[in-house]
């Protein structure tokens, strides 16, 4: 089991960080360009969050579908699972959104023991707390609203995912190359 790719968006929809470890189907076959792909991912998360908040069975006053929503109003959307990948999300009150796609498809033997990827909310929260805040927000060269490149961030990200067992062996080799 391993991570496919990770997106970090800010409130304006700009993808401020994107990294992929393993993407067999190229972007051209999917969205066309990387920018379109990122826009689609953002839009997907946006629509699903709104939809979730509207469908919430526990909420007393639910927003109507399509009405603008404040951050944090309504329930939080966490992930969706397809037959061969799982997409996990985390949205922070300051508007930063982290999305991570992860493989659930493995050989049959492992599937018997690990049915599917566990809930990655805690992992994403730790990623935000310990890695994004430490290496990006505190970096004086980071301009909020623009994409960033930071070697320290990438190293910390790879180390963290490796620790959580989310990088497969060949991905570790690729990551350190």
């Amino acid at each position, binding site marked *: 089991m391993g991570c496919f790719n990770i997106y970090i968006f800010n*409130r304006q929809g700009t993808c401020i960080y994107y990294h992929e470890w393993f993407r067999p189907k190229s972007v051209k076959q999917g969205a066309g360009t990387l920018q379109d792909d990122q826009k689609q991912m953002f839009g997907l998360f946006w629509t699903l969050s709104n939809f979730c908040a509207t469908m919430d069975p526990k909420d007393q006053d639910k927003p109507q579908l399509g009405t603008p929503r404040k951050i944090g109003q309504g329930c939080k959307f966490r992930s969706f699972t397809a037959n061969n990948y799982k997409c996990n999300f985390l949205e922070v009150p300051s508007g930063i959104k982290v999305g991570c796609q992860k493989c659930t498809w493995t050989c049959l033997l492992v599937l018997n023991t690990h049915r599917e990827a566990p809930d990655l909310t805690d992992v994403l929260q730790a990623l935000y707390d*310990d890695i994004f805040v430490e290496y990006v927000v505190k970096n004086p060269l980071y301009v909020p609203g623009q994409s960033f490149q930071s070697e320290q961030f990438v190293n910390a990200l790879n180390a963290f995912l490796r620790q959580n067992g989310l990088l497969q062996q060949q991905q570790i080799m690729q990551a350190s190359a």
Partner: protein
Amino acid sequence: MLRGGPAGARNAPSLEQINAEVFTLTYGSIVRQLISDFEDIEEVNKQLEQMGYNMGIRLVDEFLAKAKITRCSSFRDTADVVAKQALPMFLNVSANVANWNPDQTECSLILTDNPLADFVELPEEYRELKYCNVLAGVVRGALEMVNMEVECRWVSDMLKGDDCYELRIKLNEHRDEKFPFKDDD
């Protein structure tokens, strides 16, 4: 200013601390330098506020990561969180929230102790200087990142002879999340 260090256990991140006197003196020398660069006191006030704003927009992420607060359901809750959790975490002072207006859109943060202004005396010719304006900027920047547009201004200042520091916060708008891309793109 307390700055976060590398987190140990997930639930108790350690915060780096800086010597309070070093902090106060550094801030004092920044203000001094701004005054000699700009010479116009109003301009210095604006610059301090802008610096505070730039700090606030980054500080809020760190606060959210370290404080693990639950969602604030209203401006009242937000003001309480700022006074009782954010200020102690970053400045090691606690503030009270008071003087709410009937609409619940304006309040005052009252500080009796302000590490920015320790050992400071304000001479007569700098009567117009808002020495702690950086704090007003920080609050404005931080709240703007969580979609609350506020205005912050100082109404009492101990450096000018009042008995406490009072920062008046006025909520202009609690914005909704807007989809940033046009639908036909």
